[in-house]
């Protein structure tokens, strides 16, 4: 047991750095996914039919293929096929971002469609173009409603990011695997990795909860007081 402690103690800064890499990849992917998701949702709800169909096709593909397959597909196949040479880290952000974008789009679509149609009518009646209305009236409300779903998606993508280790990104999982294969202290090391994931999940979810409270529209809480 003392040896296990020693290994953890010695490798901890190294693993913690991996947690930083994981966090950076996940935050990057979530933001990229946010942009993709909003665009897809808006196209599905308001876009001309061909573009809505195209968005549907994208979502169908990214929700239908395992993340691990997507990582291999893009890193070893598609990215080099289109002649871009990306680092494993960037590839992970892009692939996770494109994947979560597909899932996030349905969070946003649900939120948009839950808003009363009358608000869009009122915006149009004031002379707003649809784009102005979507940007200033619809999305600010839809995004607020999407925070709980987004927080779910964050915790899922955070854990999916462990798959990035197959591309050799030096995130938590890859580093843990590396240390474990040298020291044979698998159990304590993977417990440590698990705890790091747990803490990152907790921090992110907590931050999103704070954000949710901060942007809550006065008078709309289901809570008393």
């Amino acid at each position: 047991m003392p040896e296990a402690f020693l290994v953890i103690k010695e490798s901890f800064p190294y693993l913690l750095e991996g947690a930083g890499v994981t966090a950076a990849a996940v935050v990057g992917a979530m933001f990229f996914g946010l942009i993709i998701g909003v665009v897809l949702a808006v196209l599905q709800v308001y876009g001309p039919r061909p573009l809505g169909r195209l968005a549907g096709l994208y979502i169908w593909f990214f929700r239908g293929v395992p993340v691990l397959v997507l990582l291999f597909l893009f890193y070893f196949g598609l990215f080099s096929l289109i002649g871009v040479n990306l680092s494993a880290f960037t590839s992970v952000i892009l692939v996770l971002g494109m994947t979560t974008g597909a899932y996030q789009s349905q969070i946003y679509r649900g939120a948009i469609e839950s808003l009363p149609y009358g608000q869009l009518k009122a915006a149009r009646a004031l002379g707003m173009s649809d784009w102005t209305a979507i940007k200033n009236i619809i999305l600010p409300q839809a995004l607020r409603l999407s925070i709980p779903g987004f927080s779910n998606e964050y915790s899922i993508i955070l854990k999916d990011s462990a798959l990035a280790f197959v591309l050799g990104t030096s995130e938590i999982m890859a580093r843990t695997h590396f240390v474990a294969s040298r020291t044979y202290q698998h159990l304590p090391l993977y417990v440590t990795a698990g705890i790091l994931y747990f803490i990152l999940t907790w921090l992110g979810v907590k931050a999103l909860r704070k954000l949710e409270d901060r942007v809550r529209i006065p008078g709309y809480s289901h809570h008393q007081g």
Partner: protein
Amino acid sequence: MTITENGPVLRAENISKVLGGKQILKGVSFTLKKGELKVLIGPSGGGKSTLLQCINFLIPPDEGQIYLDGEEIHIHRKRDLYAYRQKVGMIFQDFNLFDHLNALENVSIALRKVKKIARKEALERAMIELERVGIGDKANLYPAQLSGGQKQRVSIARALAMDPEVMLLDEPTSALDPELIGEVLAVIRNLAQDGMTMIMATHQIGFIRTLADNILFMQEGEIIEQGPPSELLMAGNATRVQQFCAKMNELYEEPEI
């Protein structure tokens, strides 16, 4: 066509609309002169709301033309359509305030995003409009914190801030508790007295009697009677309007305005 002293501000010609396989409007025409208040009444399902929404193309009419100050409005010229809509204020039955904005922002948002007025100026203008409808003290409250009557007054302020030439009011008091109807009607009465050109769907007979210049009675997608209230509402005149209003009076007690 040129604008003459008493020429129509708004003219709707031959508006037809089919929705869900049903002919909702069957070639409706009317004109609004400057400062005129026309009232649309008639049974629900008669096409009043559809007609009002066809006027500002929230529901694009299948047939017919709309003219503002003699200029025909074409729905496909987006820029012209947006400019036209700024000049035609609309009040909805269920307010349709923007739930994420407080009263002041509800009124100022279109000034900023459509008229591109600077934030500070837009907020000042919005405050003037809120005060005009008597809720300056509610400027910082959000829709969920306002009563129905206050919400409707915010929506009127929101329309007024755009300096409309015409206002379309689609049963502005129908979603309100009886004790709140009076405060909204009072605001509309002031507008009428200030010479705002308006067309309003309503069932408030007392209001119609005292303020309407003209009544349009709509049924099954057509205007079947029209004329000044003094004519159509006179007891003994066996008009459709008279029958309908007698029925409404039996059903509802009206607040004094």
